[in-house]
């Protein structure tokens, strides 16, 4: 529900379609951007910058997943495979052809998007649970193809990807890459927000709420669904390419089914909206960092498994957190955030 501060009126169409309405919100936005792009890289250590870069990349990927799940109401269990497709496409272009990131990244995004489109074609006839299974099957087939790609994908060895360069300036440390990743993440959030206000975005929401009713209203359901999958894997491709060039080496271990499930978990925790996706990513990544901090203690608790204790504990904890959110907070953190916001907005007259 759109609640606006008292006394804010729209007088023309420009105001009506503005994303940021009041001066107060402009100030907040400017503060947020200044925090992200000036204060944080200035203050934070390399480790924190690395964490934040990962968060930014994941935000891009999870927003893509949100388009399919939260906005179109389809379920994709193969998002990590689409990320892998983007990462490998960009990596192969840079490794075999030697082209720069600025050409390979869009090409990778496009090829990953087309792959998503192909996977979604069965959506013409199937829906709900079966489309989820199709994406799961696509995950197995894509990952198998990458693993058995021989010298083209360097299956088990891993593919190396070049640094991103602007002219002769290489983005080769955490701080420099952070700016690129964060810029793209902010751009993605902005683009997605706008996308949901266009005809395509509204068609997706209609398909999510009831696809039969949507088709009676003249929405081409099939086209909407495959557009959603195309966009979703496009985002995944961008995120994958970023990850490939950030880490410098790509292996199949970076894109497991577990990663898809993590991203699904982020969406459950955040809730079905853009801000929800961002919250979900932050929540999960911060949780992960907390568990890494507790690692010595966990290792002591399970002496049998010193090496894998943290991973195992993380999985155990992850399962419990997801179930907790499903049962007690099914609308996610975004809903909680809305409640807090409306308390502030309505204060001191809470009705």
């Amino acid at each position: 529900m759109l609640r606006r501060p008292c006394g804010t009126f729209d007088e023309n169409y420009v105001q009506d379609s503005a994303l940021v309405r009041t001066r107060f919100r402009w100030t907040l936005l400017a503060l947020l951007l200044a925090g992200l792009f000036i204060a944080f890289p200035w203050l934070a250590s390399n480790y924190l910058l690395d964490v934040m870069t990962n968060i930014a990349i994941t935000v891009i990927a999870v927003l893509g997943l949100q388009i399919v799940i939260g906005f179109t109401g389809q379920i994709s269990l193969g998002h990590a495979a689409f990320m892998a497709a983007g990462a490998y496409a960009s990596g192969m272009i840079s490794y075999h052809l030697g082209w720069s990131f600025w050409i390979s990244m869009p090409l990778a995004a496009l090829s990953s998007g087309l792959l998503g489109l192909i996977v979604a074609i069965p959506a013409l006839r199937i829906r709900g649970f079966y489309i989820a299974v199709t994406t799961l099957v696509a995950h197995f087939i894509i990952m198998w193809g990458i693993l058995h790609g021989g010298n083209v994908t360097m299956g088990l060895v891993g593919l190396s990807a070049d640094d991103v360069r602007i002219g002769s300036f290489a983005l080769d440390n955490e701080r420099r890459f952070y700016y690129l990743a964060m810029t793209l993440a902010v751009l993605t959030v902005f683009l997605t927000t706008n996308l949901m206000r266009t005809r395509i975005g509204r068609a997706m929401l209609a398909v999510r709420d009831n696809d039969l009713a949507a088709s009676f209203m003249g929405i081409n359901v099939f086209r909407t669904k495959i557009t959603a999958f195309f966009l979703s894997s496009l985002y995944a491709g961008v995120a994958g390419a970023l990850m490939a060039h950030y880490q410098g080496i790509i292996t199949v271990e970076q894109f497991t089914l577990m990663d898809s499930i993590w991203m699904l978990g982020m969406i459950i925790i955040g809730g079905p909206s853009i801000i929800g996706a961002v919250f979900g990513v932050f929540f999960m990544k911060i949780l992960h960092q907390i568990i890494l901090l507790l690692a010595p203690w966990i290792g002591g608790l399970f002496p049998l498994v010193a090496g894998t204790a943290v991973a195992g504990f993380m999985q155990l904890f992850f399962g419990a957190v997801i179930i907790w959110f499903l049962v007690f907070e099914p609308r996610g953190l975004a809903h909680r955030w809305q409640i807090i916001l409306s308390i502030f907005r309505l204060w001191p007259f809470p009705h």
Partner: protein
Amino acid sequence: MNFFLEILLNGLLSGGVYALMGLALVIIYKSSSIFNFAHGSLVAFTTFLLWQLIVGWHVPIWLAVPLLVAFTFLVSYLVQRLVLQPLIGQSLMSAIMATIALGEFLHGAAVLFWPGPGRMLPPFIGASRVRIGSIAVSGEALLNFAVCSVCFAVFLAFFHKTRFGLAMRGTAEDHMLAESEGVSVSRVFIVSWFVAILIAAVGGILMSSLFGISFEPLHGLGMKGLAVVIFGGLESIVGAMIGGLVIGVVESLSSGYFDPYVGGGSAEVAPYIVLLVALLFRPYGLFGYQRIERV
């Protein structure tokens, strides 16, 4: 020809276990229309638990099996009360995520308590090869297939001949109607999870006689059930049977004939390719119900 027959027979025999896995998923889906993504983890977890009882704590086998059954019942009760009951009426996504999260929880627990490979249950029969005509088949595989057939038969008898089986069939048709006829639907849910987890345990124990106990292959076995039920149709027991055998044969044929060309491992992906093609032509599986919806 001999090679072909041998591959075919081996495929059919391993298909028996796959069919059993499919059956477990069908039971849960029929009663509660939830697809159980935790099945793979349940297969592994129950097998690890039996290993812990028999090998780890030296519990005699006549006590270990009832303990495992009791534990299975406890798990199904808890799953029903804590996870599924609060989610009744929620979206498909919630139901799917709930079972995935359950699977991750059990996976994490298994990794923490039983790390690394190299566990074996004491063998049921000595390793032996049985010759049928000119085809050699391993004794374990034959035994596995026999046990699976017995399980199938027992379940079918239970499902079609007993009073509770009737309640389960009624619940599968319509929850409201079953409830109004005096069937306790939540009890049916608990029992169908109980039966499904028991079947998971049986499958895991059978497979561990071939590959030993480690998480990944057992989890993979449970997930094969996914391919089986999608192929055969989510609501059909006959579909699970046929789907299991088909998936087993496809897997065995592809590892026999394609592996030399692609450098191994085609058995992991061949069933899924068949599945994708099947989904294109029969979107609800071979024997699934095609639901007609009204707005």
